[in-house]
């Protein structure tokens, strides 16, 4: 078999190929008269194609010229008008008003003839000239009637068939399809859409195969020429014109054609820029923002695929950046999508219920008994949405899943604006975006993820969680709230790795993310604690659960601390963020923060040291470093064991003096208020300065030092060591100096015969006096010189601050004498003979001493109260949820848990609390289970198993003989619950005390409150942990006071006085911090809620008078300060005691005294209750 010859050699080889149809260009002639035009276009059944094309082409050239830029068109226009009159119905002797009046009948006949005979060139040429003609006629008012006539002619049956045939030409015949679409575009928009309605009515012909025609795209490597548009471009423009001129009902009908809607955007990515822009603008103006278009129609148009395709424009034409129109497409698409997705009237966004998933009723009625018994477990859907969250906004969800928010700022913005308007999507999005891993890596993608997550976490929580006007009955699912605070990709493992990553940038970003997350958690918890909730206990439980789950998902406090410690010293931005994170941990999740046994002193001293060294050249860096310092100071405020007056290794000054030094040396203009507040509060606490109202605390000292520095820079440096010595001595042995002061007062009284009793001066001055001889004997002329300038000014300022002048005179003369007696070589160093008085208008002491109310206290205490506190406000501040509330499900829940879970996750505690249940059967069952649990723990590998076993066994033994008849007293149960936290942690400062207590015997005395004496009377044993231990004790006592029987234990006579009496004397300590004060007041508040509690408090402990006395101590303090705030709490509590006591009995007991006392205040508060209520 031979080879097949090549095509060229084969005779007639070309016959095998499809013959290329070549349309020869038609000829034309110039038009001079209308008659000529008539002749050229006249129809003759036997005319040949060439003649027909010649005529049409001549008309086309004539119209092109008319539409061209040539100004002198009047003659031509006159010719055209004459022709139209001839070719109109009148010229053809048709009857006026006849619906079948045909304009341009010759042309129409030519078209019809061509169509019948398949002469495509003519089928194309007719719509070409008609489109041009309509465009021309629309420009001149007196020609419009002709245009309308032609349009109506097109709508006649015969012409509609021609249009239909043209539109359904083969796909390759774009030269037929495109002009027809162009002609229709002109027709539908002619005279403001005058015939749009009938044209759409005839859609079977006029819109025939529109979707197919929309997909006939330009083929070729070069870009589509705007002057020779593809069939798709023409079809889309026709569609857009239709949208512009159609009635809303017709638009709805048009948009219900799914194939058209789908075809419209299918090729959008490859469309020429002008078409894309026209399309986006057209869709925006004529559908999206058209209020008359029904929502359903909009939803048909803006379905998932439309939106996803439009979102593909974000990547459009990055290469064609030289084309300004193309370059603007991503911006226009972004604006379009943002409006479409966030404006509810655009038909895409559906109203959701915030953090409540679809199909969930947040106000479902659940019987109170069920809620009381099962808590959150009574809500069937509470735990249902961890793996799947049903949503209403499917379209938006699908769009979100097609976005790449990590790779583009605009897509990030779009996703975030969708989350903002549809918060229901956040949880669902991250659950379903499994590929979204956040493993730390120095890459653009990780950075983009981090930015996206930051924006997500920064979004506000919807009002009332549901965007309603008030909170629903039931709290939202915890998992959903958490997913909005810490989205799933920010899991513990990933965040720990990021936080402790060796790349500082990754660690910095992780820190920032956690900062915003904890701030959001704080807001969410406060919302859970809002007093307007119908079921406060239930919401309280949800808040606790939220915090627990947050802690499980976020990195541990140790990781936060380690990350902070590893930050290079010069990275002040990073250090500021890390210190803020740590501070937030203390403020928002103190239960976790305090577990870490973190000693802030070293970090604080490093920060102080760095600032004191003045190494930062840029004052802005200094101000930023102060922010870090403020955060550390706040943390120090939460750590009762902060060692203010002991210098760490390597540092010569104590932290307190360093802080003072930072304030003195700070560049002018840097705000130091927060640091001054800390200095003042520590100074008062440590009795360096008088605590009396109106005293400006440390301000005289600060001003004197700053004054010296200004006069001669660096002069203060000589006396820091001396001052540090004095401050430290005064702080560590205040009593000594207070006693010395008494001696001086005596001396002053004797010397001048003036009564100096009750005189007040700063104990620090006494210390200075005591230490001066050593300075003189050390014979350092510089120090003596600076002190010679410092002391007169300082003492002078103290006098103007209200301190006793006679007393200061005595001290000053003693110091002057020391100078006079100084060795000869120091004789040139003098001290002024007089005190230098200065008059300053210091703000009242309270405003300086007052700590900011930035969440220093726990719970709702951070809020500044403007007016007196009413009953509700007091409840918010002092009420603590019942820590021993019975959860009967604990009986079964523990069985399948590991020992770690039993102890760490509270299952053991839940079981122990059941010993206080009012049902004997529950108590007995709990007892059996506790013993089983104790045995299980003892057999385990748990490190502290012996101690935990001992505790559980002892509480069981103690309960065994009593629970048949009564619940175990709450203090014993509360002690057991709180002690569990101690025995599992050998580093706890209470560990020795609790173990000694447990070692005393297997059964506890139910007549006593365990380890009260040990904490209140004995040495703290571990460092300076008295206040830490006291805090623990007060917490357990609050939980342990629930019933009248418990109250008896609190007021029972004992060797060292009733416990309540001792608590009251404890709270009289003016140096105790506000949180501890509040704990004592919480115990009192609890007592007032117990039957007979207020009466007992009043008649046995004189609590009304005690509260009144405390209130007076706080009187006069600065508005907004801790003291002033505390004063108002005392007043409100006094009112509550009066309201809840047996007034008759109390009235008899006090002989009417208390009733008189209450009169004024109560009437005021009653009024407020009404207003607030």
């Amino acid at each position, binding site marked *: 078999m031979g080879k097949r010859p090549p095509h060229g050699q084969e005779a007639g080889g070309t016959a095998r190929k499809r013959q290329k149809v070549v349309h020869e260009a038609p000829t034309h002639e110039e038009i001079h008269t209308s008659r000529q035009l008539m002749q050229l276009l006249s129809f003759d059944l036997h005319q040949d194609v060439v003649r027909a094309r010649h005529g049409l082409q001549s008309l086309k050239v004539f119209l092109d010229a008319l539409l061209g830029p040539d100004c002198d068109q009047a003659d031509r226009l006159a010719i055209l008008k004459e022709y139209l009159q001839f070719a109109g119905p009148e010229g053809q002797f048709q009857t006026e008003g006849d619906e079948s009046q045909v304009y341009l009948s010759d042309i129409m006949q030519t078209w019809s003839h061509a169509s019948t005979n398949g002469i495509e060139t003519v089928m194309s040429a007719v719509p070409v000239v008609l489109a041009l003609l309509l465009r021309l006629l629309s420009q001149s008012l007196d020609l419009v009637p002709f245009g309308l006539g032609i349009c109506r002619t097109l709508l006649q049956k015969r012409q509609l068939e021609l249009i239909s045939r043209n539109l359904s030409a083969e796909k390759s015949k774009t030269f037929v399809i495109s002009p027809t679409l162009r002609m229709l575009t002109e027709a539908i928009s002619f005279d403001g859409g005058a015939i749009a309605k009938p044209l759409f009515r005839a859609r079977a012909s006029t819109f025939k195969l529109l979707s197919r025609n929309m997909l006939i795209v330009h083929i070729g490597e070069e870009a589509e020429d705007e002057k020779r548009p593809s069939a798709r471009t023409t079809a889309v423009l026709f569609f857009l014109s239709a949208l512009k001129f159609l009635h809303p009902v017709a638009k709805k009908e048009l948009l219900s054609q799914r194939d058209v809607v789908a075809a419209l955007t299918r090729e959008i990515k490859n469309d020429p820029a002008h078409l894309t822009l026209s399309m986006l603008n057209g869709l925006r103006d004529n559908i999206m923002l058209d209020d008359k278009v029904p929502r359903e129609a909009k939803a048909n148009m803006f379905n998932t695929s439309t939106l996803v395709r439009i979102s593909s424009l974000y990547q459009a034409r990055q290469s064609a950046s030289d084309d300004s129109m193309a370059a603007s497409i991503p911006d226009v698409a972004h604006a379009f999508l943002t409006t479409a997705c966030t404006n509810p009237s655009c038909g895409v966004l559906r109203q959701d219920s915030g953090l409540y998933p679809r199909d969930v009723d947040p106000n479902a009625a659940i019987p109170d008994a069920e809620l009381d018994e099962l808590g959150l477990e009574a809500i069937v859907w509470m735990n249902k949405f961890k793996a799947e969250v049903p949503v209403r906004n499917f379209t938006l969800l699908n769009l979100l899943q097609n976005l790449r928010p990590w790779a583009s700022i605009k897509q990030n913005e779009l996703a975030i604006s969708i989350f903002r308007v549809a918060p229901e999507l956040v949880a669902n999005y991250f659950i379903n975006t499994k590929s979204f891993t956040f493993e730390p890596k120095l*890459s653009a993608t990780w950075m*983009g993820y981090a930015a996206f997550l*930051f924006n997500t976490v920064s979004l506000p929580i919807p009002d009332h969680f549901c965007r309603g006007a008030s909170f629903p009955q039931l709290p939202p699912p915890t998992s959903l709230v958490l997913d909005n605070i810490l989205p799933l990709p920010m899991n513990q493992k990933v965040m720990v790795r990021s936080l402790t990553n060796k790349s500082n940038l990754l660690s910095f970003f992780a820190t920032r993310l956690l900062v915003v997350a904890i701030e959001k958690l704080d807001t969410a918890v406060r919302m859970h604690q809002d007093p307007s909730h119908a079921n406060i206990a239930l919401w309280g439980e949800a808040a606790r659960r939220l915090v627990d789950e947050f802690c499980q998902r976020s990195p541990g406090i140790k990781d936060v601390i380690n990350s902070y410690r590893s930050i290079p010293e*010069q990275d002040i*931005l990073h250090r500021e963020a890390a210190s803020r994170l740590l501070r937030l941990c203390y403020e928002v999740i103190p239960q976790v923060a305090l577990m870490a046994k973190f000693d802030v002193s070293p970090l604080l001293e490093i920060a102080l040291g760095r600032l004191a060294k003045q190494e930062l050249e840029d004052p802005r860096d200094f101000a930023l470093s102060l922010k870090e310092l403020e955060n550390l100071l706040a943390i120090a405020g939460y750590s009762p064991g902060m060692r203010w007056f002991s210098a760490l290794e390597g540092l010569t000054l104590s932290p307190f003096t360093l802080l003072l030094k930072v304030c003195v040396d700070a560049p002018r203009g840097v705000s130091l208020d927060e640091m001054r507040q800390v200095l003042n509060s520590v100074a008062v606490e440590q009795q360096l300065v008088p605590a009396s109202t109106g005293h400006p605390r440390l301000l005289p000292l600060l001003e004197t030092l700053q004054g010296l520095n200004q006069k001669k820079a660096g002069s203060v440096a000589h006396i820091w060591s001396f001052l540090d010595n004095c401050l430290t001595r005064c702080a560590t042995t205040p009593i000594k100096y207070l006693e010395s002061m008494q001696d001086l007062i005596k001396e002053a009284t004797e010397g001048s015969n003036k009564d100096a009793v009750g005189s007040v001066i700063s104990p620090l001055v006494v210390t200075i006096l005591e230490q001066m001889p050593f300075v003189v004997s050390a014979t350092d002329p510089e120090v003596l010189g600076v002190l010679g300038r410092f002391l007169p000014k300082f003492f002078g300022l103290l006098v103007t601050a209200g301190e006793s002048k006679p007393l200061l005179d005595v001290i000053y003369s003693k110091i002057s004498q020391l100078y006079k007696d100084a060795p000869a070589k120091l004789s040139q160093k003098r001290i002024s003979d007089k005190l230098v008085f200065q008059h300053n208008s210091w703000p009242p002491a309270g405003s300086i001493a007052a700590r900011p109310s930035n969440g220093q206290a726990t719970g709702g205490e951070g809020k500044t109260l403007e007016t007196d506190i009413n009953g509700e406000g007091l409840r918010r501040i002092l009420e603590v949820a019942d820590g021993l509330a019975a959860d009967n499900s604990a009986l079964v829940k523990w069985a399948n848990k590991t020992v770690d879970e039993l102890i760490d996750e509270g299952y053991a505690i839940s079981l122990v609390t059941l010993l206080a249940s009012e049902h004997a059967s529950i108590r007995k069952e709990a007892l059996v289970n506790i013993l089983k649990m104790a045995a299980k723990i003892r057999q385990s590998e748990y490190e502290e198993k012996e101690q935990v076993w001992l505790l559980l066994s002892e509480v069981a033994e103690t309960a065994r003989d009593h629970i048949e008849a009564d619940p175990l007293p709450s203090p014993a149960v509360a002690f057991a619950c709180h002690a569990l936290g101690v025995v599992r942690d050998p580093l706890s400062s209470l560990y020795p005390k609790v173990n000694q207590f447990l070692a005393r015997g297997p059964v506890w005395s139910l007549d006593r409150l365990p380890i009260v004496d040990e904490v209140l009377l004995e040495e703290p044993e571990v460092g300076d942990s008295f206040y830490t231990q006291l805090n623990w004790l007060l917490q357990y006592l609050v939980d342990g006071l629930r019933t009248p029987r418990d109250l008896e234990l609190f007021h029972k006579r004992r060797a060292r006085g009733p416990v309540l009496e001792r608590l009251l004397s404890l709270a009289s300590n003016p140096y105790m911090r506000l949180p501890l004060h509040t704990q004592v007041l919480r115990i009192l508040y609890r007592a007032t809620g117990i039957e007979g509690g207020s009466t007992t408090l009043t008649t046995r402990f004189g609590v009304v008078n005690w509260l009144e006395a405390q209130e007076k101590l706080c009187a006069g303090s600065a508005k907004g300060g801790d003291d002033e705030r505390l004063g108002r709490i005392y007043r409100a509590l006094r009112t509550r005691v009066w309201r809840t006591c047996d007034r008759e009995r109390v009235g008899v007991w006090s002989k009417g005294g208390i009733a008189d006392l209450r009169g004024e205040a109560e009437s005021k508060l009653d009024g407020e209750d009404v207003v607030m209520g």
Partner: protein
Amino acid sequence: MSGTESTSKSNQEVASEFASYYLQRITKEFAEDLDKMRSADDFRNEAMQVLVGALQQGISMFSPEDQRRVVESAATGKTQ
């Protein structure tokens, strides 16, 4: 309220000066890591814009008061 003193800056001025300080500070602190990131495989197209946007996010964590404090410390510090 700004503008109470003739010398104090408007809120907008403060915000813009703080933003520029913040960016300057952050690029200084993390210069090494930022260089590494710029040479990462996926650092293309919009990555630079995304990176700058991400760096700027931290500005919102400073309250207007804190921003003013930092910015104005520079002004007064220089006049000393």
